[in-house]
């Protein structure tokens, strides 16, 4: 997968490039809007990470020009302002998602993958990770032939983790996808839910699948 990052902050651009390369992406970097637009129009990128505040030509205009040129390359906007206007403006302007600075890198990675996957056909109704099987149609979870009883929320959480097996998902992303809300307080809603899920999915079995990545979030994978 080939990404283009349009970001004028050198340090930000550098760690984004490094982080994304280490996650298997090919990465181009442009340091201003004009250069970014030029590269976006020239190259065949799978996704563009576009900062809104750019010298010469801001992100809004880059996006506008890009869409005017009938390029449908997915765009993920990075904004410094958490304004509702910015969100609406971005999504109406043809952006596929947006992130507000400061953001967690794991968050960005997860969102990039979600956007990239969106372009691909719908995922299979049955997901398997190691000996854990989840059937979305019958809403049934099985591990080593044993049926696991899950509440609706637990099912949604497990499905999210399994679809993104091997990817670290941040608490913010999880709460947004599973509960459709952001928690203000240092609420432990996500922790409690993960703990309960572990009791059902991991505790009765030998090898745990759900792992905590300190400071980043949770990942489901066979280790």
């Amino acid at each position: 997968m080939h990404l283009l990052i349009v970001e004028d902050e050198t340090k930000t651009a550098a760690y984004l490039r490094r982080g994304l390369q280490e996650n298997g992406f090919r990465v181009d970097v442009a340091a201003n809007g004009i250069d970014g637009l030029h590269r976006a129009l020239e190259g065949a990128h799978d996704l563009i990470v576009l900062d809104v505040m750019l010298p010469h030509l801001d992100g809004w205009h880059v996006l506008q020009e890009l869409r005017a040129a009938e390029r449908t390359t997915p765009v993920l906007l990075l904004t410094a302002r958490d304004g509702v206007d910015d969100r609406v403006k971005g999504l109406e302007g043809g952006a596929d998602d947006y992130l507000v600075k400061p953001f967690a890198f794991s968050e960005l990675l997860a969102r990039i993958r979600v956007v990239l996957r969106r372009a691909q056909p719908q995922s299979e109704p049955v997901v398997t990770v190691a000996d854990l099987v989840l059937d979305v149609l019958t809403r049934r979870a099985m591990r080593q032939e044993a049926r696991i009883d899950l509440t609706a929320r637990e099912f949604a959480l497990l499905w999210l983790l399994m679809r993104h097996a091997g990817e670290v998902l941040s608490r913010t992303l999880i709460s947004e996808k599973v509960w459709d809300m952001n928690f203000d307080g240092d609420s432990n809603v996500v922790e409690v839910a993960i703990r309960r899920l572990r009791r059902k999915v991991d505790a009765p079995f030998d090898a745990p699948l759900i792992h905590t990545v300190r400071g980043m979030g949770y990942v489901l994978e066979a280790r």
Partner: protein
Amino acid sequence: MFSRHADAQRGPSKRRGLIRAWRSASITARLAILYAVLTLAILSVVTGLLYWAVTVSLGHDDQRFLGEKVHVLRTMLAERPDDQALLHEEVDWETGVIGHARYFVQISNGQGQVLNQTPGLPDSGINPKAFPAPIPISSTRPRINTSQTAAGRRYLLTSAIARTGSHGQQRRIVRLAVDVSNDERILGDFRRIAELVLLAGVFLSALLGAGVARYGLRPLGRLARTVEATTALRLDQRIEPGAWPREFVPLAAAFNQLLAHLEEAFARLSGYAADLAHELRTPINNLMGEAEVTLARRRDVTDYEQTLASNLEEYQRLARIIDRLLFLARAENTAVRPASASFDAGAVLQDVVDVYRPTAEEAGLTLDSSGHAPLAADRDLFRRALSNLLDNAIRHSERGDRIGATVRRENDGTVAIAIADTGHGIAADEQERVFDRFFRSAADRSDGAGSGLGLAIVQSIMRLHGGDVRLTSEIGRGTTVMLHFPPIAAK
């Protein structure tokens, strides 16, 4: 978009421009113009009335004079028919006043033959046909015609029938002409003087008006200087309300109020900046310390990982603070209006309570919700407020405590949501500060939980909806937070 707007504005006529010019004109100029217009109006009416009175009075004089002369000539012709000398004197000499004939007399017999006349009459240019028909002997009220001669003089003409002879058997026709050119001259003079008076009056009153206005507005200048000095000095200064004309007292009071608000806002802002700095100090201190200690000597990879992970937690703390502060800043910008959707507040409450139920159960608490009420509000913000309150309630309760969340629609249409816990409670002296940014109770501070922004965010959300939030609490008995959304129609 913008230019289209400007085009639409161009439509309304010049009138609006004039009105705007008048509104922005100086008070002195406005008063001067108003005085001038008023003076013009009053003087016009007064001089007009005077002119009319003089005209009427002059007319009366001339009429009476003609009436008297008709009477005198009739009497002379009737009583002294033979006294030609007297008649001569009356006709020839009485008329010759100051240089030119003031009036002319002509006496003719019934056949139109002139018997006597003032010598100047034929040369005066009066058209004999201009005389009115003679009034009968029984009438004393003269019929009057006017005649304008080629020489530019104006005459009043009348004629009357008279009797003469020893038995009054002979008919005579008396014709009289009075020169009223003088009247015209007097009226002309009057008009010229009136014009002068009007002009001078308008000019003077505008001048005096400007002076009076300037004098009258002097306290305004004084007030402006005082205000300038006050604001330039310090915000805790106030304008003395007593020393001003009565009209300025409300203004001075309003200004003082504004100053009070500003002072309060400034105090809050600087307190807030201090709190913010303090709040940022802790995570940054942790970050610096950890990085320094870690770098001080070589370590194995696990140690570095530990440090970086710990750093990440601090960064997340910073990011959360920024995120919430941005939310508060945006909510305080009154230009932001919350999205409004209609939903059942009870259902949303139930939903959020369900999210927190596992957490509550783990903490050994019972958590219930009840009630229904239709609500028009921003659903996401409503959920955010509820989740903040439930989070607080859970954190400030002990195993075995109960948390109840209820929705109720009051009789006046207000939707009231109560989150009541039987937890620790808040000390009375801390209760009024719980909505302040970064405020945390003594217990909270020691265990380092929470950001101190949760209730501030709840309050912001309620203000955005035109509602309010109230808190009652008792140490050891628990806390109840009430949210009130105004009736839908009242918004």
